[in-house]
């Protein structure tokens, strides 16, 4: 097997860990839009990084942190709803990225890779970074899942239960940002949801407990990721779009099957 293919497979299998674990909380805590946005806002940062020769992950992380700070500032005092602020920043980042890529740096073909990911582009360093992010996701989930569960189920009582959930929630957002950043190279800035949202959303249709939801989400993310790499390699297309089509198809099939079962029952 070609080394680039091995790296791509390792990358997808490692991404399945934060994809499944954090994806579970993204789905349960209704953070899918935030997740999509935190990937997309990296786009202008990635254009600058490739033009200036900075590590793309660094630029993406800086964009994600800037997004978090801007989001906090815009929604403070409740003058703007959080999802409206997210939408605003998302559009702004996409526009800034397009202007930078086409008019300032004339990046051309590089933009495709940044937005939709690339198989050949996955370096050994990317795989190591993803491994670190996967380990961090396991640690975060182990330490904070009870906080995330209690706060998500019924936020009003979290403090009365003796839980400091504000910090736990901030760390969840940071964890999602890091997971989005390491997913960028394989699936692209616009498609991080393919790994972080869709597998867990699919697993949610099939499971009735958080424990099984997490395991099933990891399973879906791993299987869809591996299949996407193999299909993308055979057809010589981007792994991100293939993964998106695959994951979307699996979700649709499971949704149809479970609703048919519900009707029959």
């Amino acid at each position, binding site marked *: 097997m070609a080394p680039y293919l091995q790296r791509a497979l390792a990358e997808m299998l490692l991404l399945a860990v934060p994809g499944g674990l954090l994806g579970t909380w993204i789905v349960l805590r209704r953070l899918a839009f935030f997740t999509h946005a935190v990937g997309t806002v990296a786009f202008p940062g990635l254009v600058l990084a490739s033009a200036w020769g900075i590590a793309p992950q660094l630029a993406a992380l800086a964009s994600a942190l800037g997004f978090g700070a801007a989001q906090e500032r815009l929604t403070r005092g409740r003058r703007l709803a959080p999802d409206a602020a997210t939408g605003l920043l998302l559009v702004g980042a996409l526009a800034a990225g397009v202007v930078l890529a086409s008019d300032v740096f004339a990046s051309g073909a590089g933009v495709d890779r940044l937005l939709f990911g690339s198989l050949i582009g996955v370096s050994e360093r990317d795989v190591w970074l993803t491994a670190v992010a996967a380990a961090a996701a396991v640690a975060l989930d182990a330490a904070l899942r009870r906080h995330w*569960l*209690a706060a998500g189920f019924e936020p009003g009582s979290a403090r*009365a*239960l*003796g*839980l400091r959930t504000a910090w736990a929630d901030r760390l969840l957002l940071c964890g999602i940002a890091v997971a989005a950043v390491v997913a960028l190279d394989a699936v692209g800035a616009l498609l991080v949801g393919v790994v972080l949202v869709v597998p867990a959303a699919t697993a949610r249709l099939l499971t009735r407990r958080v424990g099984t*939801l997490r395991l099933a989400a990891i399973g879906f993310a791993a299987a869809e990721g591996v299949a996407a790499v193999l299909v993308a390699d055979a057809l010589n297309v981007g792994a991100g779009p293939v993964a998106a089509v695959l994951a979307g198809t699996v979700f649709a099939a499971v949704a149809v099957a479970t609703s048919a079962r519900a009707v029959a029952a």
Partner: protein
Amino acid sequence: MTGVEVRDLGGGYAPGRDALRGVGFAAAPGAIVGVLGPNGGGKTTLFRALLGELPVRRGEIALPAPPAYVPQTDRARLDFPVSAFDVALMGAYARTPFWRRVARADRDAARAALARLGLAEQAEATFGALSGGQRQRVLIARALLQDAAVLLLDEPFGGVDAVSAARIEALLAELRAEGRTLFVATHDVRQARGWDQVLCLHGRQIAYGPPAAVLTAATLQATYGSELIVLEGGRTAVGVGHHEH
């Protein structure tokens, strides 16, 4: 156990405007305090203050220990993949180190708490699939696991079936007998007559004391204002609008 004492309490979330003011009372251990007032009158705000979550600008609160809180059931997400047992177990999260499973003693306590509320057979049922009254009982079981000396119950009888109401009523009596102090927000004036103390709120404290002394037509009029309906023969009823969140 010592009781709960509040002196000249005032505070609120909005800067410069108090949602609640002039609240002062003392509740002994082993007492049920009915908290009455119109929607927006400050019942939940008082609970937030007792939980230490309300910006308090004046006064003092003395509690024997942090209270447990039972929210209204409509605050909980029904689409969450958790069982009744999972929810009851949340009451033990604070004393569980993150690297451990919840202790066997606490898991036993969660089952016992559900059984005490007549939900032994529903322990594995998904929370969202239970009836409103059963959900309310699960949230009470969660509070029981905290083993708190003071319990705050936010309209536990609201929208609850007769079986659940009877179970909850019986449990409140048991908890009182154990020497706990209970604060129960309610719209049911007749029910409050059976409890030890009544606190009437309408942005400020209207009255506090034994039901016989407090629940007069004049006090109820001052508490509920236009929401009070006077029936034939001088009896009163409270008309309460839909609860908006």
